């Protein structure tokens, strides 16, 4: 059936795991970037209450094990008659987003404060609002500082998706375990997923270094 119809059950499972890992990474990275940008802006420009709230968020989620956080969402989202969620992907995406978002917040914050505050004054003096100054003047400059550490965070995120297996999501690592038990202790699935992770992380690392060069400008 379909594209993978000719493959055996293990290969199909493997491909499913591969796409689960990609889905987790893409979805969590997207939301972590949104969370991080908003939280970092609030951390830099918000009032004292907002600022300490964001600080609390960052410190809490950076200093708690990711697996514990994921299990927490898995139980929190569980229906009344179960003690674990029926939808581990949702729990995993939420967990990975909020966790990675805390790191993104710190990275974006350092990017924002690396931009000369006089740039904002110049933009505001032209009549741009604070948000417009942020969008057109600060963030485009902050991006350049932020790309390398964000690239590293993305690579870390790919690797962290492996922890999602701990809450029953069928990601690559989980799949390797299933196949291993089916084939009776065969080690090859682990080698296969190793290569599969590389197909995600190595192009990412390459893309980051390319982007870094393209965005570079003399200050």
């Amino acid at each position: 059936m379909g594209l993978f119809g000719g493959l055996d059950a293990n290969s199909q499972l493997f491909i499913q795991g591969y796409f689960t890992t990609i889905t987790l990474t893409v979805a969590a990275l997207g939301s972590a970037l949104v969370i991080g940008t908003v939280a970092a802006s609030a951390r830099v420009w918000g009032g004292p209450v907002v600022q300490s709230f964001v600080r609390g968020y960052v410190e809490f989620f950076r200093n708690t094990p990711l697996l514990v956080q994921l299990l927490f969402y898995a139980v929190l989202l569980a229906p009344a008659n179960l003690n674990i969620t029926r939808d581990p992907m949702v729990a995993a995406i939420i967990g990975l987003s909020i966790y990675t978002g805390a790191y993104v917040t710190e990275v974006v914050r350092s990017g924002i404060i690396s931009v000369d505050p006089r740039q904002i004054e110049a933009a505001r003096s032209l009549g741009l609002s604070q948000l417009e100054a942020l969008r057109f003047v600060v963030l485009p400059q902050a991006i350049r500082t932020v790309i390398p550490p964000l690239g590293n965070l993305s690579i870390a995120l790919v690797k962290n998706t492996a922890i999602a297996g701990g809450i029953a999501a069928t990601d690559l690592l989980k799949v390797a375990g299933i196949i291993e038990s089916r084939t009776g202790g065969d080690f090859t699935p682990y080698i296969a997923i190793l290569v599969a992770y590389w197909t995600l992380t190595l192009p990412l690392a390459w893309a980051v270094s390319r982007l870094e060069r393209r965005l570079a400008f003399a200050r």
Partner: protein
Amino acid sequence: MGFRALLAFPAPMNQDARTDIGSAGVSRPDTAVRPMIEARGVDKRFGSFQALRRVSLEVGRGEVVVVIGPSGSGKSTLLRCVNRLETADSGEIVVDGRKLSDPRLDVNELRREIGVVFQSFNLFPHMTVLQNLMLAPMRVRKLDRAAAEARARKLLDKVGIPEKSDARPTQLSGGQQQRVAIARALCMEPKIMLFDEPTSALDPEMIKEVLDVMMALAHDGMTMMVVSHEMGFAREVADRVVFMDQGEIVEVGTPAEFFQDPEQERTKRFLNTILRH
């Protein structure tokens, strides 16, 4: 002056007409007779430090006022209060009929009418020269790309660097950067231009090219407040010179009165220190 023909900046009369149409419904019947900038008894403190003490000053429409004074005397703070980069603690500032203490004041709308040129240029390094000039007209004045570009190219022409439109700010000399900064401010067609030591960061050979642009602007009727120690500029262009010291306005006079016959002892001492070299 010869610049005048070369550099025809929009005359203030036209600007008034434009704004009156643009702000139909908001009645400011007295704008035509009131000064462009009125500061009355302005105080500004930073913590316990008093940066401005009961500063009162009027700048008329089309008037050029040069502000001088030692470092730390509050010159920048005064300029920054006029476009609300700083908020006065007490006293009142009225700009083109707008009370800056009014809680309903739209600061973005106020700032559209006030161009600012900083000592450190503050061009946006991630944009080309043309993009620097087009950003605010497009985002704030809602001009379309073609209109913003036409306006930007016209102003680059006027400040004498049309060929640099696609350069990055960092590829320009200081004098060129400052002229771009002036053009960027003028792209918003402001009614007032504030200059905060526009030539202090420049190598001596580049000062004249920037002052020439400012002089042309003054001759074409722009209302200007200029913090500068370029005494040649003050003598030639200023309608009045203001001397500030320790947050206070010590003396105000026409350049002739001011330089030949200052009244205050503090003014005399300061003029001696700067005119010596």
